[in-house]
């Protein structure tokens, strides 16, 4: 849901360079300057992580890196806050639901 409404002052006319990333093994095009949370949200993904104790799903809540609800695995490293991580070319992102997503 990137803002494309061109009359909106918040529409980003042109984002950074496009990058190719993998989200749950699917190839996705994103743009430099975007956060991992942005790209996941734009792809319609709302469940980023599942709580170990209950299996409850979690995603973006505070948007500023203090709630730890938006954790994903990036390049094999788990528990990375998606809202604090900008995308990079060839980045491999996995959410808790992995292939099911």
């Amino acid at each position: 849901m990137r803002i494309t409404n061109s009359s909106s002052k918040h529409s980003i006319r042109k984002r950074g360079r496009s990058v190719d990333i993998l989200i749950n093994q699917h190839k996705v095009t994103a743009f430099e300057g975007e956060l991992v949370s942005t790209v996941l949200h734009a792809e319609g993904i709302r469940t980023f992580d599942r709580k170990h104790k209950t299996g409850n799903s979690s995603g973006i809540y505070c948007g500023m890196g203090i709630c730890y609800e938006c954790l994903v695995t990036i390049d094999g490293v788990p528990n990375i806050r998606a809202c604090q991580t900008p995308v990079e070319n060839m980045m491999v992102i996995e959410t808790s639901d992995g292939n099911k997503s």
Partner: protein
Amino acid sequence: MNTKTELVVIGAGPGGIQAAVTAAKFGVDVTLIDSSFVPGGQYYKQLPKEFLKDNKNHLHKKAEFLFTELKRSSVHVFMNSVAWGIFHNPKSGLWQVKLQCNNCSSQIEAPIIIIATGAYDRSIAFPGWNLPGVMTAGAAQTMIKNQGILPGKRALLSGSGPLQLAAAANLVDAGAEVIAVLECGSRLLRKGISHIPAVWGQWGRMHEGLGYAGTLVKAKVPYKLGWSVIKAMGNEKVEEVVIAKVDEIGKPIKGSIQTHDVDALIVGYGLTPSTEFFRLLNCEMKFSPSEGIYIPDRNEYFETSLPGIFAVGDCAGIGGAELAMVEAKITAKRIAWKLGHVSNDQSFKIESSEIRALKKEQRFAKMLGQVFTIPQGLFKLAEEDTIICRCEQVTLSEVNKAISYGAQSVTDIKTITRSGMGNCQGRTCGTILAQILAAELGKPVETSQFLNIRPPVHPLLIEQIEENAQPEVTG
């Protein structure tokens, strides 16, 4: 990597930047640290630098001015650096801030630290608050303003205070359908009028506020005074919200309940100060009745009970960007004088103009706090199976069990239930626990005390702690 400097400023929001540039002007060697990618904090959110090629920041003139000053100054700026602990090094006699960037660990030592870590959205717990799609006003603002992405196509906002108006207006402007904006304070108008004197002189703000209101009026977005969300529902993401009119103490009024389909619920119940470092260092904390939380005790120069540790801005009590900058100027000047950068025959003096500016901003902040308080009933929306501590998935039922065992403070609840022992060390659930406990015991929320917080304030891998080289350690 170890470095020494004269002043470390933690947090590059308006307060932190102002403190850094002011001190640097006096000749102080300043290092400014922030965990984000670009300075500005939450108030002056800049676009990512990759977007700036073809887009413009829509910022306050003041913000642009501040960023330019920072660029031109001698301040060493460390962005993308998470300060995870502040320690005292008895060998050097200095304060030591340990940092973690993506690939490197380091520390910086200085005799003086200014903590300007700002604030974050205050949470209230209600059934379904932890569903994906339910997010804070701050998160929504970041998504729209910084990333150009819509939180949802059909959104409802619930909370209290002017930040909600801004978020709602931005949503409308970005093309979302905003079902309603709910303001839980029902006595807003009555309370508001008595505070007109505090608003005097805040024309810039009023102009901004009117602008947001205008956008909402034009889009015919209902602004409902005395209403709140009471439940969010959906299959692993928010799909429906239940809202109700609430009485003066925040209790939902039967018969007023409505249900709406949404794909985003934006909650904005005000801000709470980021007091992590003060609690970590065991600074004296005092209870702020107007805000209902503990803040660091500061003297007139904004120094905490620990010599050399100063606090400016929202992290020491919510007051907004303007107040933060006024405090920052006074603090920086004081520190420059302490470090000997102001000529010796001058005794330290705060200018009367600075005092006036301070009082003006304090009045406004106080007014906002009094007008936009959260009625007690909203702290009772949670049901037995509502998650209170999200990190450890502790339910209200378990919290109540802890209280039945005899818990007298939030730390007692933490001890028994593990609330606050997860990743966020209680940032999200701490204020909620304090309210639940106080309500259950029939005591003022001050008696709930506050949670301890320990380094690292953000979790670190052991290998990252190891990389923090310690030349003194021997085998």
